[in-house]
């Protein structure tokens, strides 16, 4: 090069990828004709979406009484699942924004899938408060709007903070996701024909990859990442304050915000593993999603599992150390009360099973990681169930204690929510490049004339 610096790159190389155009070929192949496996999963997801809206429709028709919610347990599976899905969303933003700012070299191949997961998870989570309020046609009361009674929402309430946090999170993560896909959709456009070409031409907004576009795009992306980073930390903190601002024993703790954020990242990374393992297999993306990527995700899981376990133990310790009878009873009840099975599931899945991740052999075995990630998903759902239900069913006055049992409608909605999420995720893998083409090229060694001459001479 004429007096310039030598071009060097590649902290993490993909040894099986030779040329830049290989990336387009391999990633865009996923957008081709779907196989039988995809159709089977899609049919299953579509059926589950039917179950989801069927159950919700039944609840709307008969009223909220068809759920198991009853005093004293007014928050049950719906709120548990809301927190679960918001948590799942978090690791997507972590991978796309925080690891971007830290220049983590392993994020490129997973971030598109993780970000799509974020958008769809927030979309799923956002439905749960609407399901939970029962009379969903009044849900717009949550939004501040000028009305004939001059009433405004109570901005001192964490529930209103949550409305702002979750809607902001959905908007920003959707924008971030959409923006990141523009250059890749342009790549899909240049390779596609017919109707798809027209569709991609519209979505790619006429992107041509000019120096001017890349220059502003790069800057905009950094700023969005810088905004999304504190946002992701704030969202789950705000969700935790839905609980921590109340005086219910088991909720009213200052540890809640960091504890929830760590748990959210823990569950989210596990979900990324759950989703990318089959995706890699189905679309033949082994050259892009290597053991190194899974190893890095497993380490992130291990770290966050330790933080979460520490939070569990410190909660129990503080309950004992406070000497307060009600606090002590609440935590004793958590381990040995009516819902002992939920607490022990949580401790086993989130505290014990991830110990396996200390071993390199486990981190390098993709089937093992897949199984562990499912354990973590289950454990993290139960964590929220434990926090929500066991705290509420056994509050201060013994005459107000009660037992909550999720109804079949609630279970239908819970299972249906996974299908609703899967439905969108499956559509995503077919319609948008599931791996970020342009970001992957950034870490590949650039094609150089000099190199070629050296090889040939």
């Amino acid at each position, binding site marked *: 090069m004429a007096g310039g610096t030598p071009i060097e790159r590649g902290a993490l190389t993909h040894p099986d990828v030779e040329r830049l155009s290989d990336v387009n070929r391999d990633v865009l192949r996923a957008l081709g004709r779907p196989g039988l496996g995809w159709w089977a999963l899609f049919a299953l997801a579509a059926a589950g979406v039917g179950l989801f809206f069927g159950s919700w429709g039944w609840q709307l028709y008969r009223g909220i009484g068809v759920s198991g919610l009853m005093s004293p347990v007014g928050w049950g599976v719906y709120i548990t699942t809301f927190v679960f899905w918001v948590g799942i969303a978090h690791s997507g933003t972590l991978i796309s924004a925080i690891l971007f700012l830290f220049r983590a070299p392993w994020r490129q191949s997973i971030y598109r899938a993780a970000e799509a997961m974020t958008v769809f998870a927030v979309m799923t989570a956002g439905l749960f408060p609407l399901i939970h309020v029962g009379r969903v046609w009044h849900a717009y009361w949550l939004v501040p709007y000028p009305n004939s009674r001059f009433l405004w929402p109570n901005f001192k309430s964490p529930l209103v903070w949550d409305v702002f*946090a979750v809607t902001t999170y959905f908007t920003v993560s959707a924008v971030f996701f959409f923006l990141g896909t523009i250059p890749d959709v342009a790549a899909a456009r240049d390779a596609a024909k017919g109707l798809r070409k027209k569709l991609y031409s519209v979505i790619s907004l006429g992107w041509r990859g000019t120096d001017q576009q890349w220059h502003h795009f790069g800057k905009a992306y950094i700023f969005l990442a810088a905004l999304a980073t504190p946002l992701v930390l704030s969202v789950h903190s705000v969700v935790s304050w839905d609980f921590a601002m109340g005086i219910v024993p088991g909720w009213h703790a200052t540890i809640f915000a960091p504890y929830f954020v760590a748990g959210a990242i823990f569950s989210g990374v596990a979900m990324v593993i759950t989703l990318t393992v089959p995706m890699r297999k189905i679309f033949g993306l082994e050259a892009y999603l290597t053991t190194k990527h899974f190893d890095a995700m497993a380490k992130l899981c291990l770290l966050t599992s330790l933080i979460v376990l520490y939070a569990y133990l410190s909660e129990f310790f503080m309950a004992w150390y406070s000497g307060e009878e009600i606090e002590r009873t609440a935590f004793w009840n958590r381990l040995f009360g009516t819902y002992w099975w939920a607490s022990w599931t949580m401790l086993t899945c989130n505290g014990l099973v991830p110990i396996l991740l200390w071993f390199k052999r486990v981190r390098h075995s993709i089937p093992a990681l897949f199984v562990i990630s499912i354990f973590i998903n289950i454990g993290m759902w139960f964590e929220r169930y434990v926090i929500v239900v066991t705290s509420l069913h056994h509050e201060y006055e013994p005459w107000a204690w009660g037992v909550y049992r999720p109804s079949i409608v609630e279970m239908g909605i819970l299972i249906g929510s996974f299908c609703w999420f899967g439905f969108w995720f499956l559509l995503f893998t077919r319609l948008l490049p599931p791996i970020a083409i342009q970001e992957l090229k950034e870490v590949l060694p650039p094609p150089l004339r000099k190199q070629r001459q050296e090889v040939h001479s």
Partner: protein
Amino acid sequence: MSASRIGLLASYEYLDSTVDAIEKLKKAGFDDVRAYAPYPEHHIEHALGYGQSPVRVFTLVGGLTGTATGFAFTTWTSVDWPLVVGGKPIVSIPAYVIIAFELTVLFGALATVIGLFLNSRLPAIKPAVVYDPEFTSGRYGVYVVSPPERADEARAILQKEEPVELREGQEVAHA
């Protein structure tokens, strides 16, 4: 006046050829040089000599507008119907910090996108004059607009770096 200017588009397979071509064109005094790349390439940006992107101003102004809106709105609605809730002051700044923070991020992010769209002229409805679909795959491109009398000189510079393809397009005056 610019109707008779000639645009030349060269597609390159190698990054160093691209950067060399840009640097030589710049040295020869061609000002209207543009580049295409399949990913953001800072060597190209460096060769073209880019400064700060004005997108940052959009982000800052958007963010600050969000902060101000958050505090103003919560305070105004509290004073509009003063009601003591939970023994807290009518205007409870700590609680409103959360709303202000969320709106900072929301407005900042949306303003960033607006800034990006305005600065990089997206969405681009009109297709590029000359374009190679390989630019989103594996090729780099250099586009130079020159007056007709210097077109041969520009072509020679582009040709020297061994392009895969060299095309000519009449440059239409910028709208």
